[in-house]
């Protein structure tokens, strides 16, 4: 009898422990995420995709913004994975570095703008929950992730471009691709 009762209680215990975590998530995160996504959708509909494409096109023209502000802007407005088609604004030899910078920003963006990648929120939310439970504010953490993320993707874009150029030269002899 006692064994049976214990087994039953342990069975519930696991799920009740899980339920406590679910409560933390739902009570503390879901409400502001819903309001935030609502606001962003209204804002983006008012701004329109054409304007974003125009700005992205301009930002792609120089390497500094191409690996920092352009991926940030595209990610904020188009999200993951619809940011990657923006590479078509760029010459062929710049697409790889842009893609690397852009996809590396698909998690730093979610701290402030969860709508951009709602399916992979927990890369931010996992650590953020711990910080929240430990009694710290999330605002500072989210904005630091966002800003340091821009610096990181810039360096990543630069390094990837250099490696790409080197591999390209090794394979084709020069930066001009020979016609097949």
């Amino acid at each position, binding site marked *: 009898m006692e064994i049976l009762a214990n087994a039953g209680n342990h069975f519930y215990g*696991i*799920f009740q*422990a899980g*339920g406590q*975590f*679910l409560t933390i*998530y*739902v009570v503390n995160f*879901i409400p502001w*995420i*819903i*309001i*935030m*996504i*609502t606001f*962003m*959708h*209204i804002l983006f*509909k008012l701004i329109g*995709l054409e304007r974003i494409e125009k700005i992205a096109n301009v930002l792609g023209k120089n390497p500094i913004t191409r690996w920092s502000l352009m991926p940030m802007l595209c990610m904020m407005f188009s999200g993951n994975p619809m940011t990657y*088609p*923006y*590479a*078509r604004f760029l010459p062929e030899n710049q*697409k*790889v570095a842009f*893609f690397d910078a852009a*996809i*590396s920003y*698909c*998690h730093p963006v979610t701290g402030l703008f969860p*709508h951009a990648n*709602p*399916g*992979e*929120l*927990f*890369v*931010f*939310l*996992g*650590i*953020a929950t*711990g*910080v929240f*439970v*430990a009694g*710290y504010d999330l605002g500072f*953490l989210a904005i*630091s992730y966002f800003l*340091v993320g821009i*610096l*990181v993707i810039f*360096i990543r874009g630069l*390094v*990837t471009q250099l490696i*790409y150029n080197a*591999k*390209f030269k090794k*394979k084709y002899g020069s930066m001009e691709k020979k016609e097949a």
Partner: protein
Amino acid sequence: MYNAVKIEKGHGGWGGPLIIQPTEKKNKIVSITGGGIDPLSKKIAQLTGAKAIDGFSKGVSDDEIACVVINCGGTLRCGVYPKKGIMTVNLTPVGQSGPLAQYIKEDIYVSGVVEKGITLADGSEVVEFAEAVVEEVRAEENYDDVKDDNWVARGGKALAGFATKCVQGGKEAIDITIKDILPFMAFYALLLGMIMYTGLGGLMAQYVYPYLGTLPGLLILVVICGMPMISPLVGSGALIGQVLSVLVGLGIALGAFPVVLALPAFFAVDAQVGCDFIPVGLSMGDAENETVDIGVPSILLSRLITGPIAVVIAYFFAMAMYAV
């Protein structure tokens, strides 16, 4: 003689493509958008040779309607016409929505339509009208009652458009929360519940977090995640990154992982981000195959270098910020 047109959904739209083929009896394109006949109805009328009519100022019996053009934000009109079996073109990009959602089907409804989504259907798609003659029809001859919008109509339309956008924003937010966010919350809550209830959390607090919660610990983690033979395997769906993040979060909540290292930990668990997705992502940007061939190893190698750099930058940023 009427021409068939093909109407395809636009950005964010749903349903279709529809083939609209007016007949001698069903020869009216009814615009129910408020404030006269909208340009889309004019275009359909122009291409098919049917007659565009402002549905608000003139009633049309259902059996004369070839199709209706509406700008419904997802409550009523978008379901009413499909329910009656009338081809429905919605200018607003909404899918199956509203109290009559079950009548909204791909073969009778298309939404988010813009002008370039309307083309003459080629013969193969409307078999019985294969020899439809393309005839220049001057659009101007085909409408009734074209009125200029007055300022009340314009203001009303703008307000209705804004309200629609707001409600749609809310709908999308709820959709995303239910489809994309809550399932992950359920999964990670279960994972954490099991770790804590079985006592694994306590063991990790003793034996794992003290080592992981240092700069060298994070660097070892990022190098493992960033290794070119590992990163494409652990990049899939960001699952490993998310699980690692949840585990680090648990360490912080337990007080076993220093909260100062939260920022560098973000970059330590994520060196592999998207490594499984490189060929797909590059082809979304119209990259050529040769570019992809060189691009994949370039990115994988870059991650091994920039992963640790990212952790170090974030580490010093966090240290500097907490010192202030």
